[in-house]
């Protein structure tokens, strides 16, 4: 596996340039954020509630396009292309998203849930291709052994942690360039959370992960880089260890030491 030791803007997989998001004219939830995200890293986005971290994450895969009132400006360069100028359907397949609440499709079996990205996009696969994608995707989230004999059961029959891993598998099945995770463990118990965290550390060998988290110790445990946001602005962005030990900004320090949150 190729590792990038000296990150430069050229090998960033994702670049945010002056990204702003407004929910109504003149009211910005995200203000002129600039950041480069490098391959095979986990980036944690932290900050108090309402700071715009989820809003920023959802700008990357054009989720804001679903709501007419939300405007995104600036440039978001994913693999050299500005996603704001692309077809949102294509962008969303390139940037997979995992949500706070595990949301497997309740009318689909576990098997069909993994393949949902293909079904939803009208891509036809033969039986062998399907079996292979399902097995690979479930293995990559360490769910294969647990569910291989109950493939035809509904996804909702699994535990919360298993459901979330199923949702990750569903996203990975489409081979995305980046994996966007919006507080993926906040609805889970500590053991399931732990499993997902271990999983993310494995997945970063192949994927680039951006994770929004409320949980500072989670950010410290798994992320390579951290972004701290406050009132819509990106206050600080850098190496996680450095940020946790020697934050450059007073706001970051106050947040990390629990002065506010």
């Amino acid at each position: 596996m190729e590792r990038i030791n000296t990150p430069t803007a050229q090998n960033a997989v994702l670049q945010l340039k002056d990204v702003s998001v407004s929910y109504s004219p003149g009211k910005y939830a995200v203000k002129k954020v600039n950041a480069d995200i490098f391959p095979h890293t986990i980036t944690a986005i932290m900050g108090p509630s309402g700071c715009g971290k989820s809003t920023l994450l959802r700008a990357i895969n054009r989720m804001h396009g679903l709501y007419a009132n939300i405007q995104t400006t600036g440039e978001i360069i994913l693999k050299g292309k500005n996603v704001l100028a692309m077809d949102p359907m294509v962008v969303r397949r390139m940037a997979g998203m995992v949500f706070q609440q595990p949301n497997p499709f309740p009318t689909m079996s576990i098997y069909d849930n993994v393949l949902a990205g293909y079904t939803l996009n009208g891509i036809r696969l033969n039986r062998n291709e399907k079996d292979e994608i399902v097995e690979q995707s479930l293995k990559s989230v360490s769910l294969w052994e647990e569910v291989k004999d109950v493939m035809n059961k509904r996804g909702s029959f699994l535990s919360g942690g298993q459901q979330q891993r199923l949702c990750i598998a569903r996203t990975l099945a489409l081979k995305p360039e980046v994996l966007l995770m919006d507080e993926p463990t906040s609805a889970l118990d500590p053991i399931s959370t732990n499993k997902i965290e271990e999983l993310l550390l494995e997945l970063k060998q192949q994927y680039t992960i951006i994770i929004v988290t409320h949980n500072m110790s989670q950010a410290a445990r798994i992320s390579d880089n951290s972004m701290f946001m406050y009132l819509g602005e990106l206050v600080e962005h850098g190496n996680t260890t450095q940020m946790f030990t020697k934050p450059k900004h007073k706001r970051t320090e106050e947040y990390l030491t629990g002065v506010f949150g």
Partner: protein
Amino acid sequence: MKDKIFKSFLFAAALFILLLLAAIVYALVSRSGETFQTYGFWGFVTNSEWDPRSATEEYGALSFIMGTLYTAFLALVLCVPFSFSVALFNGEYFKGKKIAGVVRSVVDLLAGIPSIVYGLWGFYTVRPILIDLGVSVQGFGIILSALVLAIMIIPYASSLSGEFLSMISNNLKEAAYSLGATRLEVVKHVSLPNAASGIVASYILALGRALGETMAVTMLIGNTNRIPGGLRDTGNTMASVIANQFGEADGLKLSALIAIGLLLFIITALINLIAKLVMKKLSHA
């Protein structure tokens, strides 16, 4: 103590309704007894003769059962495209928008129009159109009744199914969108499958309405006592034959009409039972 009094009041009220239902069923059964004794249950249900002349008096319910099924199912089929569109419009595409509220109010208004007014409108407006189109000479019949019935049941089919569609969680729809689905694909693969049992339930509710609807149908169906030869033919439904003939009926004829009432009651009860079973199956499968 107060709690106990309230509880026994609730119990009494519930018991009263049960007894009322039992009383209605008893009245229907006892007063239709003569018919079933004369012809037997299957004899009555499978006979399509309805001849009130005293010399050749003979009564069978099949013509009206068929007339009811023809009109109700045709009305259901005709109402699907409209109520389905309205449901998607209100529950999915324009969910929460002002225009959805306006459409919902207008559709609900349709439910508030008295049956007799629909009958008049069908008689004086829709019937001439059918005559002009050459559907039938008089315009009366299954098609005319079903067309007007279809409009009457649109609110029942659309408001409930729209409700079920709008209840699909955003979380689930966003999951589908995040995988690159278009709106149509989300509707097809997420919204509709998840709301399926509710949508089926609302159509069965609408069918129940159509089966029992009396006034407008009586005015439009042509009131002939035989199995309709086709959709362009005239006929009678179970409800319309009762409405038409109960005033001058006595003896065996009155008993036969009450027997038809009992059958209509049984059919509607069965429809409701089927609806419940379908919903149960769809939500647990």
